[in-house]
């Protein structure tokens, strides 16, 4: 922050905000557009991509990463790796969850017995 003490960044920040609002509307439009993509998966990927772009804009400009020195990598890269590894590690759960569906689970989902309480 100290390197640009007297640079007026207000127009830049306002421009970033306008882009962010535009991306929010784009995300809303993609989410509601019928027949834009053949697969819903494509739609989801586009929306997550838009979110990632918005997050990048916030981090780069509002959180001043654009102007920070290299310490930023030391703090964020390991964290991001852990976060990404965590989410990736959950992927097998998505694939296997359907295999364990059964009648009882469907019938008694969220009932007292399902988690063994009240017995």
């Amino acid at each position: 922050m100290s390197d640009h003490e007297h640079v007026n960044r207000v127009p830049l920040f306002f421009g970033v905000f306008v882009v962010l609002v535009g991306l929010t509307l784009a995300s809303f439009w993609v989410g509601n557009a019928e027949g834009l993509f053949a697969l819903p998966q494509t739609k989801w990927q586009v929306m997550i991509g838009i979110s990632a772009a918005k997050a990048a804009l916030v981090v780069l400009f509002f959180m001043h990463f654009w102007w920070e020195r290299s310490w930023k990598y030391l703090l964020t890269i390991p964290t991001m790796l852990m976060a990404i590894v965590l989410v990736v590690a959950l992927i097998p759960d998505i694939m296997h969850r359907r295999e364990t569906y059964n009648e009882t689970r469907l019938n008694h989902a969220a009932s007292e017995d399902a988690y063994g309480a009240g017995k």
Partner: protein
Amino acid sequence: MTSKANHDRTSPLEHGASHTTNGDPTLDRGANHDHSDQGHGSVLSYHPGLPISRGKLALWLILSTEIMFFAALVGSYIVLRFGVPEGTWPTPEVVHLLEWVGAVNTCVLLLSSVTVVFAFEAAKQNRTQSARKWLGLTVLLGFGFLGIKAWEYSGKIAHGIYPQRPRSLMYERADLNYLSAVKQRFAELVSSQDKATSATQESKVARLGTATMPAADHQNTAMGVNLVNFDDHASDSDRLLFLREATVGWTERRVGRVRNPFVQQEMLDVLAFMIYPAAAQWSHIEGCLKRESQRVQQELEEMTAQKVELQGKISALVPSDPTSEAATDPAKAAEKTVLENELGAVDLQLGQWKNRSQLLSEVQSSGSAWVGLNDRYHWGLPMVLPNGNTWASTYFLLTGLHAIHVLAGLIAFLLLLTRTLGPAAAPWIENLALYWHFVDIVWIFLFPLLYLF
């Protein structure tokens, strides 16, 4: 001992073992206190590991843990969301989620991120009033976000879409388990109405000193009720009894009698549709209603014929001359009683079928625009909403934890507003703004995941 401008521009590494403090004024004060008398040659100088203030480093460490915290939450949500069978996750309409409200809230939070940045810029340039104004606006926007969120929550809660113990109102499928839950809820409604009625009667009695009126017999009232339009021309009590009889009472009896499991399932599906239509497929329900009303019409015709036949038999037994021998014949009188009892039973059944037929035609004429009993009367009846419980749990957990973060940021901002927002307060604003932006980023991901996926 230190000229701040100089040190700000030099890396600590260039100074070697000599002292270094950063732009943070609070840090400067601490460092000065330690070795202001010893000057540059001090051995005990403080040497930060990273070229940023301690406050900012601490804040970034918090954010690192927060990134992992929300990554775990979002990751678990993705597992639950995409682990359900294809196409069974509740759509926004089913759970009364308004996508545009989510988009507006995203913009509110984005705007608050800009205003806090402006507050920081103003504080750095010692424009304290301007900084106060922008920070105040940030706080207002933050509370605006929470207000919209609270309004959304109240809508969900009004519709019974929230986790509760021992059992939420949401059921995975229309089965006998569901049927008995609906029956139980109707019984609760009727008994609470009874209590209310008897309470008013008692107070009336106490006021007027008159004898109490006999309580209405529900079985008889329900069977006898024949409402032209249950929505407009009925008292609350009559409507409740009529609908209890024509929905769950009817379904329970028919499901017990019909042997075909497909027909049983169709009746249960229709019951679920009448209570909460949002989660049902209209094309399927339309067919069910059509088939059922055909059956009901056929049955009504048969029963009317039976009634006419019985009436004929009874009138044949009544002799033209009451003084004749036939009139006093005890065997004929007994036969007449049996026939009259039979006629009573047929009448009762005919009333039930007529009620059902009336409700069916009401539902059929509304079609897919049918407003469910829950949304009409707020009776809190159990509803069939596949994956509704998982949806509610994840939605409230994710948005609730995010809202708590927003609230924490707002409290910190309010505390900061009690200070003079000049250059001395700028690092505070900067650090809190970093946290605020992070909370914004979390919402940036939550918005499409919860509202648009």
